[in-house]
């Protein structure tokens, strides 16, 4: 917005990258991110899980240092907790041994504010946020919504330059979060909010568009800024207005649109059992086989095409729940995203219509064709003399590519392989087995007795 272009730059993020060391190498979470937060604007960071949005927020809060690049507050490079910010946590992060009042006072106490003034300011913040009458309650006596109000009061009482919010509503139920969100919108509108500048991290598209002047969409693996949207709609915003819905659809399109290019292979991934199949660097979306089937049935029931926003609404799914399933269906050629819509393919129609046994066979074929990790495991098993494979070896290979997420990748591959009856997994001996392996059936019985 032109108005903010002249406003003071409060936070500057310049070419920030962040990577964490993992067992098998390094995992890049943020890659070359630059952004500016100016006085008086509300910015939303939107992304799915794994996009590093919380990591970026913590870099801005000065809680962690970036691997490369710099984060500055009012032009000064951060080397510790950002003095101009206060953070509202997803988990509230209240001290359970203090009352509401003591929790709110704590930040002022840290600043050395005198007891009388401290009390007065804390009571005012409690009053503004609608916590009157709860001053002497302990957090565990409060509902989630009330606890998050304490979280807001605690952050606002120190009157920070920038209010940071890390998915502040995602631990609340739908009604409570709606209530608290609209109250915030009202407070910003009527000027009772002491802090005018805010950064909110969210995976809820509507929340981002409802609150923010600017939405930054983050891409996953590694996190980088994929798109920036200015939201020019007047506040308070009507979520049913066509303009609002158009923006939501646009964001869905961005999120499911052309994928980032496949991950670069770091180092030579070698295996003794089989040559590494092509495309192992393309991750498996973490979706269960049941969810994939359910999505296709839903699509088929809606005549083959449905808007992603509508699907999410109908299933009460957050994008973190929905998008991996969409990605999986896309990977297996069962459905294709088209802009804001998802369209079922011919394969998908057949899959949705067939009975369990036939669906399993079809799934097995598709998984071997399109899911690189599943294909890789099947090939390695067929090439090995024993018909078995140590899961640890596969994991080591994956760790070089995926770091911490290697186990999740293997879990998904095991789930898909088991469902397609391509291979079994014996957790006692930590081996992947072909169904023809002598231990296979016995392993299955044993396993069920021990899991849980």
């Amino acid at each position: 917005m032109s108005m903010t272009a002249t406003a003071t730059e409060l936070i500057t993020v310049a070419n920030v990258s962040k990577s964490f060391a993992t067992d098998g190498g390094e995992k890049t979470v943020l890659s070359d991110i630059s952004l500016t937060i100016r006085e008086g604007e509300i910015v939303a960071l939107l992304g799915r899980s794994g996009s590093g949005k919380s990591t970026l927020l913590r870099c801005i809060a000065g809680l962690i240092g970036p691997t490369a690049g710099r984060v500055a507050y009012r032009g000064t490079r951060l080397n510790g907790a950002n003095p101009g910010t206060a953070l509202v946590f997803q988990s509230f992060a209240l001290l359970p041994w203090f009352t509401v009042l003591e929790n709110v006072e704590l930040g002022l106490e840290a600043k050395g504010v005198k007891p009388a003034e401290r009390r007065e300011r804390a009571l005012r913040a409690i009053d503004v946020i609608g916590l009157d009458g709860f001053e002497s309650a302990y957090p565990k006596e409060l509902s989630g919504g009330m606890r998050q109000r304490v979280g807001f009061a605690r952050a606002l009482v120190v009157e920070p330059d920038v209010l940071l919010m890390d998915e502040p509503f995602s631990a609340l139920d739908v009604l409570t979060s709606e209530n608290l969100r609209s109250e915030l919108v009202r407070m910003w509108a009527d000027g009772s909010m002491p802090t005018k500048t805010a950064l909110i991290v969210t995976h809820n598209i509507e929340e981002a568009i409802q609150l923010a002047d600017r939405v930054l969409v983050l891409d996953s693996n590694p996190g980088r800024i994929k798109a920036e949207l200015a939201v020019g709609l007047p506040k308070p915003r009507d979520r049913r207005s066509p303009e609002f819905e158009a923006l939501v659809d646009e964001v869905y399109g961005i999120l499911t649109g052309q994928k980032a290019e496949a991950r670069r292979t770091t180092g030579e991934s070698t295996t003794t059992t089989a040559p590494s199949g092509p495309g192992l660097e393309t991750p498996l979306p973490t979706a269960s086989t049941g969810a994939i089937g359910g999505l296709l049935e839903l699509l088929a029931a809606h005549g083959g095409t449905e808007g992603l926003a509508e699907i999410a609404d109908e299933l009460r799914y957050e994008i973190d729940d929905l998008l991996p399933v969409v990605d999986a269906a896309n990977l297996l050629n069962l459905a294709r995203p088209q802009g804001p819509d998802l369209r079922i393919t011919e394969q998908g129609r057949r899959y949705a219509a067939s009975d369990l046994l036939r669906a399993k066979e079809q799934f097995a074929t598709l998984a071997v064709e399109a899911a690189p990790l599943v294909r890789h495991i099947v090939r390695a098993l067929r090439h090995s003399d024993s018909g078995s494979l140590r899961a640890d070896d596969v994991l080591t290979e994956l760790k070089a590519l995926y770091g911490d997420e290697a186990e999740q990748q293997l879990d998904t591959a095991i789930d898909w392989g088991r469902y397609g009856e391509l291979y079994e997994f014996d957790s006692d001996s930590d081996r992947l087995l072909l169904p023809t392996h002598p231990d296979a059936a016995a392993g299955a019985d044993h396993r069920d007795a021990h899991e849980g």
Partner: protein
Amino acid sequence: MPLLRQVPGVGALSRPRLRWADVLIGAGIAVVFYLVVKASLGAAAPINLETAPQSVSTDPANLPYYALRSLLRMFAALAASTVFTFVVSTAAARLPRAEKIILPALDILQSVPILGFLSVTVTGFIAMFPGSTLGLEAASVFAIFTSQAWNMAFSFHSSLVAQASDLDEAARLMRLTKWQRFWKVDVPSGMIPLVWNGMMSFGGGWFFLAASEAISVGNNSYALPGVGAYVAAAVGAGELDHVWWAIATMAVMVLGVNFLFWRPLVAWTERFRQEDTAAADRPRSVVLEVLSHSTIPRGLGRAFAPVGRGLDAAMRPFGVAEHPLFVPAIRRRATDVVLIVLVAAAIAYGAYWAYDFISSNIGLGSFGEAFVLGLVTLLRVAVIIVLATIVWVPVGVWIGMSPKISRLAQPVVQLLASFPANFLFPFAIAFFVATNIPLDVGGILLMALGSQWYILFNVIAGASAIPTDLRQAMESFGLSRWQRWRRLILPAIFPSFVTGGITAAGGAWNASIVAEVVTYNHETITATGLGAYIAQATSSGDMARVLVGVIVMSVFVVGLNRLFWRRLYKIAETRFSL
């Protein structure tokens, strides 16, 4: 409206008036003050070590005063352990370099047979406080301290490290000062495990109290007025009836401290629980309820609030509890190098000193002798673990699986576990003497008296934690008794059993020092073993042999922990955690 007028106004209700709880608390405070002063006067009395009493009077009339002195030692040790815990654990958790030194040091210290060091510390402390009983008192307190501090420090350190990351982030962003961070976030978040651990360690401390009040070092015998010295004197004189009095006193002390101190403390620390929902059976305490009805605690709190504010302001210059995100690599590496060199030099010097001391006094061959004796004691420890497992696992499961029996048995087991086993030694020894059982065999029972409870304790805890739905599922499948044990119960209690086993084995090694040599009715009976080796070296003042014995025993304990228990622990964690 008329109804409202009959209700007394808020002012009338809150008008301060004397309540029965206030009277009770006030009297309690006065009594505690009087007792502490009385006991401290005795502890600081001047003394001539040449003529110091070698044993205490066994007249039961002295027991209340002795009990008081023993209690003072216990609480002094607890206070010292708490301060140690706060300082050392915080240093380990906040300074990555300190952690690399402190954690391995604590790990070794907690496996070292503490009683073997008694001779060294007694000599040292007597030299520190010439002409006063304070030296002996300090040595006794130190012995108890060493049985508590490492445990408590580990517990507090692990709760600091496991502190919820969002609380840590919130504290850093609020820019709490170091002092505020410690008292408002760190201590409260580690409070529950710390108090539980303190309570357990306190129970274990009675054993060391009893063992450290009467001790012979270098052909000198010292006795401090206390229940432990009383028992030692009564046993030495073969007066079993007087031992009974001491046992009764001990039981009163254990139960009394539990009722007046630990129960209220445990109930009070419930406020520091971080889970959203309170546990179904919250610990309760009558004493805490009386306290909460009284205005005295709150009044004291208000009176001391300015002190707290003053401290808060005074500690402000120490800065904010925050660490820089970027440290120049050169400076970091330089500090690392300096630290490594210092630590390596200290270890090398210590090792060289010990080598020189041992080889010039008794020769390195004594290690071989001690090692063979260690194998004998190891055999006893192994027998104890096997027998205790066979006996106590079924009993523990039976108690733990039935909530009703559990409620009744829990206090009894707790009393047994914290009751110092050395008080029961006289009866066992009398029995061995009467039936001509050699101490080589009887020593197993003596060592087991103190250590077996840990297995029972932990098995009860493990069995009572088996989810009811799992048990019902097993019953609905119609599994036979044996199948139920094999499929559910044994796997479910395995992790707690391993925890109990480690503690029991450690306790048994320590107990061997007091169980392999005993004096009864003016007669000394000895068994073959490493414990006897250390005990005899201690009483004859042969420091080189003490050192050899302690080193060998530490190697046994640490080695077994690494090679045996830790592997079991790993299996327990990966395979059988519920």
